[in-house]
């Protein structure tokens, strides 16, 4: 009898537990891309760095009646005749879109590399070296400014590569293999967009080339993805090999313009040196303010103090100083500063569960894709629903990510111009429910990123504008709940971000896509 009772209870609990632990991740449920509009005239859209869509030549394709083309179609057929389960998975995965999937891969690389180096035995810190990326500390340390820059270069370059791709598609007008030969199965939705040069391959070419610069230690991972992607396009019946080769070559050429820009955009000098760090501290003292001091142990040099001088996309450096840079924060000796510090102490003292939830939802700290990555994830989910063409995906991602990088630059400019201390430096009673970033407080990076992102995304998808503004507001205030930012940091951060976003909107209005 007892035995039966135990069995009964045990099986009831087992039932409660239900057996499967399988988790279906959001991004693996994205449907195949099926653009409502192919944007066939997209070759006329305004590129970012290219002088024009035909700056790099693409040779005319061979005729679809040529023996070599027929051989390429036969390659598709031979894959399709023996398609494996794994090949089907790859076809489905990549069918969601090239810009989307490579954006996800970027986010993954950022999360992998978003860890601060451990200190040396003497209490100093090592810096990652691009020339020796696999030695500890691995290159890069993909912190928020680094990540914002990486996303921006890749997105902007993808856009230019696709403007050129669309130009040649329209020019040569070669149909996709599934349209040329009815015996080729279309394993993804058919499109009447010309397939030469391949837009997927252009994205692969431009992205892999830029990632050699941005994530030099991850080449194997990146190349495996690229190979899988190209193969998926062939198996899907969407491209013949010459479509891919032309697209990839074009992408690689376009990438070189962006690599050249990146090498000269002053990021390399953004780390600064001891003399500069001391100078910044002394300047704040000379202004009569309490300077920011690292609260890490041992004290860590501030994160990329000269990132505010990195070359921007949407406005020039004079505009940065005259128009974008926020007014000075409340003086560290003012009553307002005291009141704002007390406000943060109160958030710190007894955070509600909801405040902790919000702080953690937006934390995007160590080992994450950073706030710019979070806004890319938010945008991607909405873009999937909008059924954009690859070109429009790239254009929108470029606008978003140029905004995010310029937001990073504007924010870092303010942080190191004012060198304002964190709340927990002023009031040691303040403990944080999220990690304390190792750089000055004013203005909040999350707020600046979010203001910029919400502004440009609200322009791209007006029906979501209110929602984006609410998200930006929550992301901003999450830093007060986490007890790492004052109210002024967050409010001025949002304002500054909105200003940056407005420059992206201005570009969007004239780039030919609207």
């Amino acid at each position, binding site marked *: 009898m*007892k035995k039966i009772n*135990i069995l009964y*209870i*045990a099986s009831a*609990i*087992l039932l*409660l*537990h239900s057996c499967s*632990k399988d*988790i*279906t*991740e*959001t*991004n*693996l449920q994205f449907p195949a891309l099926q653009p409502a509009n192919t944007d066939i005239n997209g070759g006329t859209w305004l590129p970012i760095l290219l002088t024009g869509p035909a700056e790099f030549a693409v040779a005319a394709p061979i005729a679809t009646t040529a023996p070599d083309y027929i051989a390429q179609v036969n390659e598709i057929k031979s894959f399709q005749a023996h398609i494996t389960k794994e090949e089907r998975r790859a076809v489905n995965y990549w069918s969601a879109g090239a810009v989307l999937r490579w954006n*996800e891969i970027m*986010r*993954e690389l950022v*999360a*992998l590399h978003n*860890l*601060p*180096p*451990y200190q040396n035995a003497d209490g100093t810190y090592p810096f990652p070296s691009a020339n020796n990326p696999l030695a*500890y*500390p691995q290159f890069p340390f993909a912190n928020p400014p680094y990540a914002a820059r990486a996303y921006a270069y890749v997105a902007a370059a993808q856009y230019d590569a696709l403007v050129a791709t669309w130009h040649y598609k329209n020019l040569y007008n070669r149909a996709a293999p599934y349209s040329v030969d009815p015996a080729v199965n279309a394993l993804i939705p058919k499109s009447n967009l010309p397939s030469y040069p391949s837009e997927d391959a252009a994205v692969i070419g431009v992205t892999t080339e830029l990632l050699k610069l941005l994530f030099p230690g991850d080449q194997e991972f990146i190349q495996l993805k690229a190979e899988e992607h190209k193969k998926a396009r062939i198996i899907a019946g969407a491209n013949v090999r010459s479509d891919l080769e032309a697209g990839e070559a074009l992408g690689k050429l376009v990438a070189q313009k962006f690599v050249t820009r990146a090498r000269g955009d002053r990021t390399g000098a953004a780390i600064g040196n001891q003399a500069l760090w001391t100078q910044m501290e002394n300047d704040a003292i000379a202004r009569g303010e309490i300077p920011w001091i690292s*609260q*890490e*142990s*041992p004290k860590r040099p501030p994160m990329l103090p000269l990132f505010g001088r990195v070359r921007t996309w949407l406005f020039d450096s004079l505009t940065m100083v005259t128009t974008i840079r926020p007014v000075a924060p409340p003086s560290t000796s003012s009553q307002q500063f005291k009141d704002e510090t007390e406000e943060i102490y109160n958030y*710190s003292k007894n*955070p509600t*569960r909801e405040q*902790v*939830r919000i702080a*953690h*939802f937006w*934390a995007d700290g*160590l*080992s*994450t*894709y950073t706030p710019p990555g*979070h806004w890319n*994830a938010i945008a991607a989910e909405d873009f999937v629903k909008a059924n954009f063409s690859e070109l429009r995906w790239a254009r929108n991602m470029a606008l978003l990510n140029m905004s995010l990088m310029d937001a990073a630059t504007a924010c870092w400019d303010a942080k190191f111009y004012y060198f304002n201390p964190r709340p*927990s430096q002023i009031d040691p009673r*303040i*403990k*944080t*429910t999220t*990690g*304390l970033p190792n750089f000055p407080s004013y203005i909040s990076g999350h707020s600046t990123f979010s203001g910029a992102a919400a502004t440009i995304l609200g322009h791209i998808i007006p029906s979501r504008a209110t929602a984006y503004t609410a998200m930006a507001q929550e992301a901003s205030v999450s830093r007060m709940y986490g*007890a790492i930012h004052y109210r002024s940091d967050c409010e001025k951060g949002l304002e500054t971000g909105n200003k940056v976003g407005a420059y992206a909107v201005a570009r969007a209005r004239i780039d030919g896509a609207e």
Partner: protein
Amino acid sequence: MKYAYISLVMAVIVVTNTKINAQTDIDGVMMEKNAFCIGPMAGYSSWKNYWEGSLKRENLNLGKVSTTMYSLMGNYGITNKLNVMFGLPYIKTKASAGQLKGLKGIQDLSFWIKWKAYSKKTGQGRLSLFAIGGYSLPASDYTADFLPMSIGLESKNLSLRGMADFQTGIWFATISGTYIRRSNIELDRTAYYTTEMHYTNKVEMPDAASYNVRAGYRNKGGYAELVLDGWKTLGGFDITRNNMPFPSNEMNATRIGINIKYPMAFLPQLSITGNAFTTIAGRNMGQANGFNAGIFYVIDLSKKEKTGSDNSQK
């Protein structure tokens, strides 16, 4: 009433190194029919060094991470061979250095059913075999995603334990093995990185297994014993260099400790328990030392029979 050195809540011990269960889900002792034992416990544990993967290190931005625990535990004898138990701890964490705020709250409510399936005199002693089933679930809406300051790991745990106890005279030894099935948990964020990117708020928690060996002196009223236990997470990943811990890390620990129970001569229903432990090996967890103390009282809930209120063993 026995103190159980390690139990299905070990996952949390591993992290916060405090939760200690003063009940009998892991020893060879049963409550008599209709006897109900209940009492509070308090505990403290702390660590300064921890294992980042297999690398032992300190963290100057955490200093000493400590956990204070208060709990209520109870055990009721349905029959002499079938007991039910519960435990409910309140936990508070603190880091002595750095900026991270400690968290506090009611952690997991645990239940156990303990069945003495077999008991037989063999030679000079008595061999008993037990089966114990346990279940625990969070009793408050705490977050597991703020380690090492989180008060628990949030998963619902189902455990099954087999145990053998041998006593000869006043000496005894008990050995047990446990399998713990852990449910997925949900984070407050929509994406996270383990060894790869995940676009979901759900985290798959690997199951775990543990063993426990204890031996020492035991008479009708009290005991003194040495304990060796181990917890192994069956899967999970290592904390990467200079990263923070994550709930689905491969958390392993081997610990040794001492454990006593002492009945009050003036009131045999009342006893005090105490224990101390230290961690001798681990992975992705703190090298914790700790101690706990509790007071337990046995109430006879039977109407008719008049029994001695101590938790006799046979």
